[in-house]
């Protein structure tokens, strides 16, 4: 095996094999964006799971009183019935004051006294083994109550679909950034090879194989990309850590809760950048050398 990069020996490629300074900047920016996308996806996933968890832990029951029964009495009876169902942690009838308090911001004070309000029961489910909507409906029917159960499955589905979409978009952004990095490396490799055509020919005529020459470029660009990736990811980590500190416990915003643990994921960024660069540089160099006579 030809040793082209032994310790203590000078590199066979000149320092500036072709536009490397700008390449460092480009890859650092791409890795910065990839880091933001990755942490954004983690935060979105965490937020979606939190919201879905909250929705999964609750159900709302609307009670329609019989002609011989008042609304509050029907709601109280429903709450009592539901409290006895397996998988229900707590069931509480919502009184009119609480219902008005919920509606006040939307309809105002003036119309509230005359507004017919539904009689609701708020059900807190056992998070480990929550009761299903059919079991709640069945219990209410057996108690002779006319009621409908909303277990928030519609909203929960929407939230989970949204979270999946955000994660997929972040993943797609990550892949596009990786592709852009590979394209930049491939372009730089071609430019470097064009700029160093005389060096390559000299190495080749002195017995260097195509693989050995390609390894010079892959080592050069692999180290360069890993360094630039570390700079980009480091900058992103600093920025995200600052946002986390500013935002307190909830991160910058409760809608996208950042966690310090997410920053560990950024360790992979320089490794991935280096791997993409090694692959892109090697394939490009071998393809270009293969086209030579």
């Amino acid at each position, binding site marked *: *095996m*030809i*040793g*082209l990069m*032994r310790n*203590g*020996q*000078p590199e*066979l490629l*000149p*320092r500036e094999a072709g536009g490397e300074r700008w390449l460092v900047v480009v890859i650092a920016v791409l890795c910065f964006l990839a880091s933001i996308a990755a942490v954004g996806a983690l935060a979105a996933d965490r937020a979606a799971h939190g919201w879905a968890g909250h929705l999964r832990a609750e159900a709302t029951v609307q009670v329609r009183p019989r002609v011989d029964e008042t609304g509050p009495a029907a709601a109280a009876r429903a709450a009592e019935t539901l409290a006895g169902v397996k998988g229900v942690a707590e069931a509480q009838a919502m009184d009119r004051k609480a219902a008005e308090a919920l509606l006040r911001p939307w309809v105002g004070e003036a119309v509230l006294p005359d507004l017919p309000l539904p009689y609701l029961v708020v059900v807190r489910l056992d998070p480990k083994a929550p009761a299903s909507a059919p079991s709640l409906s069945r219990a209410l029917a057996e108690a002779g109550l006319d009621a409908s159960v909303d277990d928030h499955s519609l909203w929960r589905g929407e939230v989970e679909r949204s979270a999946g979409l955000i994660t997929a978009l972040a993943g797609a952004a990550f892949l596009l950034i990786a592709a852009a990095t590979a394209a930049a490396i491939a372009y730089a490799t071609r430019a470097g090879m064009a700029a160093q055509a*005389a*060096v390559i*020919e*000299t*190495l*080749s*005529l*002195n*017995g*260097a*194989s*195509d693989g*050995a020459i390609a390894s010079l470029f892959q080592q050069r660009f692999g180290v360069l990309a890993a360094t630039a990736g570390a700079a980009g990811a480091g900058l992103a980590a600093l920025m995200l850590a600052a946002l986390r500190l500013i935002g307190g416990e909830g991160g910058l915003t409760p809608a996208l809760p950042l966690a310090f643990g997410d920053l560990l994921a950024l360790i992979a960024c320089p490794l991935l950048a280096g791997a993409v660069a090694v692959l892109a540089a090697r394939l490009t160099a071998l393809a270009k*050398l*293969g086209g030579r*006579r």
Partner: protein
Amino acid sequence: MPDPIRRAADPDSAPDAVRLRGVGFGYGGRPAVLRDVNLSLPNGSFHFLTGPSGAGKSSLLRLLTLAARPQAGRISLFGQDVTQLPRREVPALRRRMGVIFQDFRLLDHLSAFDNAALPLRLAGERPADYAADVQEMLRWVGLGGRLDALPPTLSGGEKQRLAIARAVVARPRLILADEPTGSVDRPMGEKLMRLFQSLNKLGATVLIASHDEALAERSGTAVLRLEGGRLAQIAPASSAGPEAQS
């Protein structure tokens, strides 16, 4: 003769070091540079290749280093047909050659020592194993005090001597030189010629392309002349040389 050549390749009893049969070559759509060239260089032979500028001397050397492939005919090196040699097999063949380019082809970012050591480094030898030989070779070509000098700081003659040191340091079996004494004064030129002759006596096949026919005649070796893309032998007669030209 100094030590640097003490390990030169042994004479090879195998077939000719170089054999060309009906070789034709040209660049793009332009007229052929070489036409139906037939040539045999036995192992251990020493030849000058002369001819006017543009006669095809450098093109012939490019074919022999496999930097270009012929459009017609066949080329054999060390008894192996290399006309369509797969690219992956070329490096091993090139490590058996020492090539001196007219434009030196030195690596400007490497010191004189590292330039001279390049073939040995590419062949996988350890610096500890070749450092003394490389230093000795550089001393012999008059660059012993410039081991760390970068090529851009060297004169034309120094660059040429460095290029020669690099070409012969690995004791190649075939030495191809394109105007190897073009940038040095006459005493150094004759000293370098003695180096080639010593390597030749130790078994290396030598082919030197030069427009300096007087130098070729002084050497007393076989002289081949390229003219109009065709090859002819002038003097002295030898068992080696061009074969029947069509």
